[in-house]
């Protein structure tokens, strides 16, 4: 439907352009013959000689004839003598005056005739310089034709890009379908149907983003897979990618239940990705304060770096099988992030810090690069299957991974520290907020008292409020006294 609309529009444009351009010059095209007559009538007095010259004038450049014919309306409005675009005005005028002398003056006739010839030559030379927009040919509309061609190219690219992305997504799904269906009870859900039935297909968000939700497994709540392809359907993006190559990505986010994961934060990936994540992600910046360590210490390729809360976590996660997986597919791994305190990227708020700690969720995040760096084919999707196996293995592994006593204590201390820091930073703001709330309450009460119509009740309420205030003040004084005594 959408593509039909797209094709209709340039067609419409072309159709509209045709009558618009024709309408103006319709009459003028037929004037070819009339012009010859026009000339003849003008020089009727010099008929004998005129025949030769007329034929001569008509044969010598016939194309420029078309141009002066295209400006008859404009030329007619001005005087004859003002075909004086260039050339010898004087010569022309002379011939004119001489002609005006009358038919009798045959002496001046040859002169004037030469003058006419001169004039015609001037006209023809001037006609060669007639501005393009006054010529009547399709060639003068070359900018418009260029624009419409550009639009058509855009539409063609849109259709081709959309289809390619669709084929890639389908190829990915076909190669991964079996693995997913054997691991999850629900594969594919868009959240709209009443019953939790597997739709068995990807959700299309965009022409370049596809989603898949899988759920119904031990050890996890659900898994959201996002296929983030390049914007092949947008020609501008295609051209930008020629300057800056980029690749398709597959992002997998596994959300876990509380009991499925112990408390730790860990990430491994390319050095660039690790540097970026450490700055952007809330949990990585708080819990993994050290710079990313090189992966070579744990048997990984040098191109990968590790961010970890503590060494024990790294040892626990990087067992032989994981190292094997990562080493074999290092070129496809962008980042792997396990966290029990995941809350997304850092939120920059205008009013300073948020008043509450952001909500956290136990999550495993995987970002994989599709091989091919933009020039992917459907066969490349099969190369991602072992990575999905790694994801499944990680889910099971994380469930079994438990920190020892020391590790657990350290982790708890870390979390307490982070919370304390946060509370300190927001202390002033929270106090302010509490103060405003108390004032609001007082004002509301006062209003209630004022609104009471019965004066008796009003007085009683006022007295009750006063008594409450007194009690509060006394309590405070008591507290201060107690503190003083204790200090002593």
């Amino acid at each position, binding site marked *: 439907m959408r593509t039909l609309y797209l094709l209709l529009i340039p067609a419409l*444009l072309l159709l509209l352009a045709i009558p618009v351009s024709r309408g103006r010059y319709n009459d003028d095209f037929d004037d070819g013959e009339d012009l010859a007559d026009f000339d003849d009538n003008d020089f009727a007095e010099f008929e004998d000689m005129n025949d030769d010259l007329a034929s001569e004038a008509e044969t010598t450049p016939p194309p420029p004839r078309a141009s002066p014919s295209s400006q008859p309306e404009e030329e007619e409005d001005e005087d004859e003598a003002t075909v004086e675009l260039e050339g010898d005005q004087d010569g022309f005028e002379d011939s004119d005056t001489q002609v005006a002398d009358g038919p009798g003056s045959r002496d001046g006739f040859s002169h004037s005739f030469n003058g006419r010839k001169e004039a015609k030559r001037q006209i023809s030379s001037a006609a060669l310089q007639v501005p393009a927009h006054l010529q009547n040919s399709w060639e003068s*509309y070359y900018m418009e034709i260029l*624009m419409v061609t550009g639009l058509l190219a855009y539409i063609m690219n849109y259709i081709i890009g959309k289809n390619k992305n669709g084929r890639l997504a389908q190829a990915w799904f076909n190669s991964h379908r079996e693995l997913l269906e054997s691991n999850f009870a629900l594969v594919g859900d*868009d959240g709209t149907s009443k019953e939790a039935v597997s739709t068995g297909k990807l959700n299309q968000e965009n022409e370049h983003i596809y989603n898949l939700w899988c759920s*119904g497994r031990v050890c996890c709540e659900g898994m*959201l897979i996002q296929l983030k392809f390049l914007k092949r359907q947008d020609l501008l993006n295609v051209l930008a990618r020629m300057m800056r190559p980029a690749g398709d990505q597959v992002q997998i986010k596994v959300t876990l239940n509380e009991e499925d994961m112990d408390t730790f934060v860990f990430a491994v990936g390319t050095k660039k990705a690790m540097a970026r994540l450490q700055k952007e992600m809330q949990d990585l910046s708080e819990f993994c304060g050290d710079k990313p360590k090189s992966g070579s210490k744990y048997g990984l390729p040098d191109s990968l770096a590790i961010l970890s809360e503590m060494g024990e976590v790294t040892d626990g996660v990087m067992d032989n099988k994981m190292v094997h997986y990562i080493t074999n597919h290092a070129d496809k791994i962008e980042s792997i992030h396990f966290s029990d305190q995941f809350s997304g990227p850092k939120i920059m708020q205008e009013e300073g810090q948020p008043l509450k700690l952001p909500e956290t969720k136990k999550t495993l995040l995987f970002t994989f690069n599709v091989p091919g760096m933009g020039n992917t084919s459907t066969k490349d999707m099969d190369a991602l299957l072992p990575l999905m196996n790694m994801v499944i293995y990680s889910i099971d592994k994380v469930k079994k991974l438990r920190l020892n006593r020391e590790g657990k204590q350290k982790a708890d201390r870390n979390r307490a520290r982070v919370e304390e820091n946060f509370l300190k930073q927001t202390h002033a703001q929270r106090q302010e907020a509490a103060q405003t709330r108390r004032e609001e309450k007082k004002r509301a009460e006062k209003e209630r008292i004022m609104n009471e119509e019965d004066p008796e009740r009003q007085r009683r309420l006022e007295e009750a409020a006063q008594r409450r205030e007194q009690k509060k003040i006394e309590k405070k004084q008591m507290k201060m006294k107690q503190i003083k005594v204790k200090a002593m």
Partner: protein
Amino acid sequence: MPLLLTSCSPLRRSLLCPVSLFFIHKTANLSLIMSSNNMADPRRQNKILRYKAPSTETNVTLEDPTPDYMNLLGMIFSMCGLMLKLKWCAWIAVYCSFISFANSRSSEDTKQMMSSFMLSISAVVMSYLQNPQPMSPPW
């Protein structure tokens, strides 16, 4: 099973042996199958959670501002083209609405897209109706 065998006479033992072996084999197999099923099939029908579209606050990556910007640009250019009678403005407006369409999310309203298309097309058509001369290049 072994006790029964020892208490029996040798004849009975010879008869019972294969039978008992057969039963042992069967039960062993069954327990193996059951445990392997439990281990091999991690699917749990009762643990299904429905898909909830991620909110835009948490998913900044999904909030690509390109279609909205292009839509706005397209409208501005088409208004410029209509009022100032500039042909190139109108053409750029057409391009902007195409780009906005190509980048739009599938959840977005098609009416909005169509209205920006129509506005840019009308800007082009009006410019040419008022002034049918071809566009002059800027150089």
